[in-house]
C-alpha cells in the first residue's frame, strides 16, 4: 500500500460530520416515527461507521484486497443475521417463556 497521507482537513471534516450525526440520531430518537425510528438510527449508525472505515481507517485509499476484506466481513455478518432471522420470521409456533 502506498503511503497516502490524508490531509488533516479531511479528518476534521469527518469528525464534524460524525458529531452532527450523533446529534441527529439522539434528536430523532425522541420523535415517534414508528418503525422509522429504528431505520433512522441504524442508517445513521451505518453512515457513521462507513465514514470511520473510509477515512479514519484509510480504506478509501487502500488496496483492493483491503476492500475485499471489509466487504467480506460485512457479507458474512449478513449471512449470520439473515439466515438466523430467516428462521425466526417464518416460525408458525412462536416461542414464549
Amino acid at each position, binding site marked *: *500500500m502506498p*503511503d497516502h*497521507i*490524508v490531509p*488533516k482537513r479531511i*479528518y*476534521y471534516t469527518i*469528525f464534524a460530520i*460524525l*458529531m452532527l450525526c*450523533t446529534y441527529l*440520531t*439522539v434528536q430523532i*430518537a*425522541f*420523535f*415517534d*416515527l414508528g418503525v422509522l*425510528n*429504528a431505520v433512522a*438510527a*441504524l442508517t*445513521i*449508525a451505518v453512515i*457513521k*461507521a462507513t465514514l*470511520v*472505515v473510509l*477515512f*479514519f*481507517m*484509510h480504506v478509501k485509499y487502500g488496496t483492493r*484486497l*483491503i476492500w475485499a*476484506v*471489509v466487504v*467480506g*466481513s*460485512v457479507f*458474512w*455478518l449478513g449471512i*449470520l*443475521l439473515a439466515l*438466523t*432471522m430467516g428462521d*425466526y420470521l417464518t416460525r408458525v409456533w412462536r*416461542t414464549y*417463556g
Partner: protein
Amino acid sequence: MSELIQHPALAHHFDSLEQQKEASTLGMWVFLVTEVLFFGGLFATYLIYRNWYPDAFAAASHELDVTLGTINTVVLITSSLTMALAVHAAQLGQRRLLLIFLVATMTLGAVFLGIKSVEYYHKFAEHLIPGPGFQFEKEPVHVRHAQLFFSLYFVMTGLHALHMVIGIGIMLVMWWWSWRGTITAEYYSPIEISGLYWHFVDIVWIFLFPLLYLIGRHA
C-alpha cells in the same frame, strides 16, 4: 535484502519493510474481521430478542442514561479523531505531536471507561443486574424480558469496555515505542495498525449506542 543495509525493524523473514508493512496491515484487517463476527453473534442475539419483545426492550432501554451515553459517544468519536491525528503525526515523523495525540487518545479512552463505570454502578444500585436479584419495579410486566435486555447490555458493553482496556494497553506500548524512537516516518505501521483497532472499537460503540440507549425514547 542482505546486501542492503537492513532496517532494524525488518524481521528476518521479510524481504522489505514494504512487504512487512503490507503483511501487518492485512493481518490487522483480518483480525478485525474476526472481531466483526465476534460482536456479530451478539448483534444477532439482540436483533432476535428485540424483535420478539419490543415493548420490554423499550422499557428496559429507558433505564439507561441517554445523557451519559451521548457524552460517551462524543468522547469516543473524539478519541478516534486524536487517533487519526496521531497516525498523521507519525507519518510525518512529528514525534512530539504523536506523543501528545497518543496521550489524548488514551485519556479520552479512560474518560469513556470512567463514565461507563459510573453507569454500571447506577445499574447495580438499581438492582438491574440480571440474575436472581434483578428487579424491574417500573414495569413489572416486563421483568423477565428486561433481564434479557440487561444481559445483552452488560455483555455487549462489557466486552466493548474490555476492548477499550486492551486498546489503552496497546496505546501505552505505542507511546513507549514512540518515546523510545522506534517509530519513525519510515516505520510507523505499529501506530497505523493500532489505530485500525482503536477505530474498530469506536465503530462497535457507534452501533451499540443507538441499539441500547435510543430505542423507544419517544414513548
